[in-house]
């Protein structure tokens, strides 16, 4: 018998604290698989955000730092400058990265900082109980947009990948999704490419992953995956937004 699929070595045994069906867990696994495949567990340093993934430092078998809310790219910059031979990644939610940490991610990208960011876009503040995120879709109800996000007063969702792709510092920026198996496979490919580009010193890399929050969306895990495809993907189209090896496209 041959192993077709097994738990990656770069994940610890500790069960995660994520809610049932939350796709944070899938994304964690993909990162761990990539770390395994690239054989970089012993030189990877991860940076956990403040968000539902705040305990991510418990789940990866590599050195980790827990950053202040939104500041993971700055923390990662500090680490990478000290350990240039290390492989440094941040794992950040949409509140963390696109709201409070907006300046940090823009500037890490503009600096072409040699780090990889996995950006988990679930359109909500999961950890704090379902408040509006910068990526919450127009009309969606959250605990701070109880009447539905009104673009007149609360503005429009930010398309982070498109925005960062206007900069010269990034080497690779892609938006992927984990709402079905085919996309999970693609998502892993993107994350792997991002890490490879970092290792090759090509520039800043970011993979935006459309993710779910069944708990705060008030949907079952399955319905949540459907919402990603039905509602999120039209607003946040999947694709490579920047690939210095391939030229820009979209």
């Amino acid at each position, binding site marked *: 018998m041959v192993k077709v699929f097994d738990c990656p070595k770069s994940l610890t045994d500790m069960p995660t*604290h*994520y*809610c049932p069906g939350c796709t944070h867990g899938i994304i964690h696994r993909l990162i761990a698989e990539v770390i395994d495949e690239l054989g970089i567990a012993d030189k990877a340093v991860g940076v956990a955000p403040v968000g539902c993934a705040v305990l991510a430092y418990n789940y990866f078998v590599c050195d980790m730092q827990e950053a202040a809310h939104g500041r993971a790219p700055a923390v990662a910059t500090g680490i990478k400058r000290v350990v240039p031979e290390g492989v440094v990644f941040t794992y950040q939610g949409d509140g963390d990265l696109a709201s409070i940490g907006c300046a940090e991610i823009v500037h890490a990208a503009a600096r072409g900082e040699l780090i990889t960011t996995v950006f988990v876009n679930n359109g909500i503040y999961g950890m704090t109980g379902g408040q509006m995120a910068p990526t919450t879709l127009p009309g969606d109800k959250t605990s701070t947009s109880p009447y539905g996000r009104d673009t007149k007063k609360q503005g429009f969702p930010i398309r982070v990948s498109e925005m960062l792709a206007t900069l010269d510092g990034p080497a690779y920026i892609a938006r992927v999704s984990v709402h079905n198996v085919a996309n999970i496979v693609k998502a892993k490919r993107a994350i792997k490419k991002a890490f490879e580009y970092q290792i090759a010193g090509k520039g800043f890399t970011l993979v935006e992953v459309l993710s779910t929050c069944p708990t705060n969306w008030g949907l079952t895990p399955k319905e949540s995956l459907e919402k990603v495809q039905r509602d999120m993907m039209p607003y946040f189209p999947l694709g490579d937004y920047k690939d210095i090896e391939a030229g820009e496209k979209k």
Partner: protein
Amino acid sequence: MTLGVIMAGFGGQGVMLMGQLLTYAGMLDGKQVSWMPSYGPEMRGGTANCTVIIADEEVGSPLVTSPDAVVALNLPSLDKFEDIVKPGGLLIYNSSLINRPPTRTDIRIIAVEANDIATGLGQPRVANMVALGALLEATSLISEASLEQALRNILPAHRQELLPINLQAIARGRASVEPVLA
């Protein structure tokens, strides 16, 4: 007189609401009251509990270290709180989900088949009300009238149709106490 009650269960079993109803009823009875949730690092699906104080004087600490009564809706809650019930106090546990009987002998213990009774009523989600009914019956913490009024006030306008089933659940909870006393 100051009485402290801890109510505990899985998230989703409605322990927070149960505690709020008790508190509300106490307020309507003209008592001094407070309600304090646990809001720790537990994730959704984990355990949840709240502490209710009903008193004649100003409420000091909204937390209690040895509660006068504990309502435990699941096993982890029983495990966590059985030991701290005040000697002579009351422990109500949901025997539908808890398969080990409590071991304390210095307190009054009431088993309520909360889930079974609720399911019997055709609405499994009112198990918390069944337990609350048992508490109402077993103590003189609050009056029945105030509890009913509290329920009316707390249910939002578009949910008032749920009033009867909740009242029924409370009644069945009260009724369930007798056999244990016997």
